């Protein structure tokens, strides 16, 4: 009991001093569970997020864009790998987490439950979805748990790169044909509101935020981050020449921020509950790939066993 108390004190002091918790350090079970869940969910999001973009690799209309897109999707697989590794430092197991993903026990970012309908979606995902992800993730680079914070530093660097590439694709398309400009506008219309929902429910409806902030896993509330994203994105939309689909969007000089319209939280909740346009498809696709890879993983394990025994 005394040991636990002193461990707990040590943990709390480390957090308070803004120092990093490392794998060897004692942590409260709820801190561990919260982190595993959050990092796993983040890892799952990277892996599921490969699908909507991967959908366009074989059809990318220039070889340069094809290479950029393929590299981006590959990076996402890499991010998934780092993040699953980070959960392993907390005692989780990758196979077990994958099972939780494909059985629907763990979530991933709801944004990936929307379909990608034209090649412009590739650019808009880079611009808006990666943009929102960065807003969410930059503060995580200072997360109290060391391995997660370090993974986030690397991931954020790559995400910014992706975001610029997405924006650059849109810039090119906006300088192109009328059909291309329409595609960009139409994709923006579809992705804008779901991007705002990426920050999660409004602060009043987000019961876990307080504890996560106390533990310095989270540094800002959902609404703070959402506002930051809007303020960052509106001028980008203007530079691009697209209209954001919100008639209530306007500069509020008093607040020094943009006011924006009401989010349709009922849609958010439906998608979260599994009833978005692609939830079933995304999980089924991942499950199929996992199931169809089972014999390959078994073969690799059998081979490794033989090899060890022979050595």
């Amino acid at each position: 009991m005394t040991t636990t108390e002193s461990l707990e004190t040590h943990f709390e002091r480390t957090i308070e001093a803004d120092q990093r918790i490392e794998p060897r350090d004692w942590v409260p079970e709820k801190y561990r569970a919260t982190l595993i869940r959050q990092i796993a969910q983040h890892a799952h999001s990277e892996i599921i997020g490969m699908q909507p973009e991967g959908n366009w690799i074989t059809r990318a209309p220039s070889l340069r864009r094809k290479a950029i897109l393929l590299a981006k999707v590959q990076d996402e697989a890499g991010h998934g790998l780092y993040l699953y590794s980070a959960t392993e430092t907390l005692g989780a197991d990758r196979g077990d987490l994958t099972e939780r993903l494909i059985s629907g026990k763990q979530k991933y970012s709801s944004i990936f439950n929307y379909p990608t309908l034209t090649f412009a979606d590739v650019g808009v995902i880079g611009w808006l979805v990666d943009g929102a992800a960065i807003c969410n993730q930059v503060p995580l680079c200072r997360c109290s748990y060391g391995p997660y914070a370090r993974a986030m530093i690397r991931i954020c660097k790559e995400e910014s790169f992706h975001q610029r590439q997405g924006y650059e694709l849109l810039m090119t398309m906006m300088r192109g044909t009328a059909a291309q400009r329409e595609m960009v506008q139409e994709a923006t219309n579809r992705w804008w509101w779901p991007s705002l929902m990426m920050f999660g429910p409004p602060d009043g409806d987000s019961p876990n935020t307080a504890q996560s902030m106390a533990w310095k896993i989270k540094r800002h509330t959902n609404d703070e981050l959402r506002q930051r994203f809007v303020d960052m994105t509106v001028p980008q939309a203007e530079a691009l020449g697209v209209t954001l689909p919100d008639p209530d969007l306007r500069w509020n000089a008093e607040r020094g921020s943009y006011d924006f319209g009401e989010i349709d939280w009922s849609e958010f909740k439906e998608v979260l509950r599994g009833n978005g346009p692609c939830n079933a498809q995304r999980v089924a696709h991942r499950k199929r790939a996992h199931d169809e890879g089972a014999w390959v993983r078994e073969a690799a394990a059998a081979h490794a066993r033989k090899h060890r025994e022979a050595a």
Partner: protein
Amino acid sequence: GNDLASYCLMLGDDALIMSHRLQQWCTRAPELEDEVALANIGLDLLGQARLLLTRAGKAGTAMPASAGAAVADRPEDALAFFRDEHEFRNIRLAELSSHEPVDFALVIAQLLVFATWRLALLRRLTDSRDPVLAAIAAKGVKEVTYHRDYAAQWTVRLGDGTDYSHRRMQSGLDAVWPYVGELFDTHPVERALADVAVDPAMSRTEFDDVLTQVCSAATLTVPDIPPLAGVSGRKGRDGVHTEEMGFLLAEMQAVARAHPEATW
């Protein structure tokens, strides 16, 4: 001249079409590590295709008439997206589809054969009198060495894994084998470009040695299956492809062709 352009198309199309087949594996691999590896190999080959198609354009390949104005200054895209099937010069091995139905053993066998053959070619090509080709080859040798090793490692793991994986891997090799013969046919263009192109027939022994070694380590049998015929002797290098090629190109070219005047 024109032979050089044709030769660059051959090597470029091989890489482009094989890369496409690897792209189709994206989000379907058995492990994340393979997701990363297959994408990586697809990217390397895509890079080689871009250099080689660009070189083909500079060497004087006629641009397809249907390629819009915007594409004129990007020969790689004009050639990739606006040529018709019979204008593609890749060997038929690259067209083999392995992702639907999903067959990891098949893609590994396809890649093992493709990379072993291509590595032998590129190694010799580093001595080409054409400095651009020599440089592309030198870069490619490093990349394709990794591709071959990746495929060889999986061939061994699957061949010497479980009974089931052994059967699957042997079936994969057997399915790929009819496409091997064509790889070593010397094409008139290759004959005409002495010191610039390499004669693939020269690499058959090296290829057989590698395959024999890998199969031996994998407890597999090197197949003894005759080569796939051409149509009146015409094969991939002559623009005569398998029935899968039309579907592949329909998908690859759909967006580009829907917007011939666009830049991306």
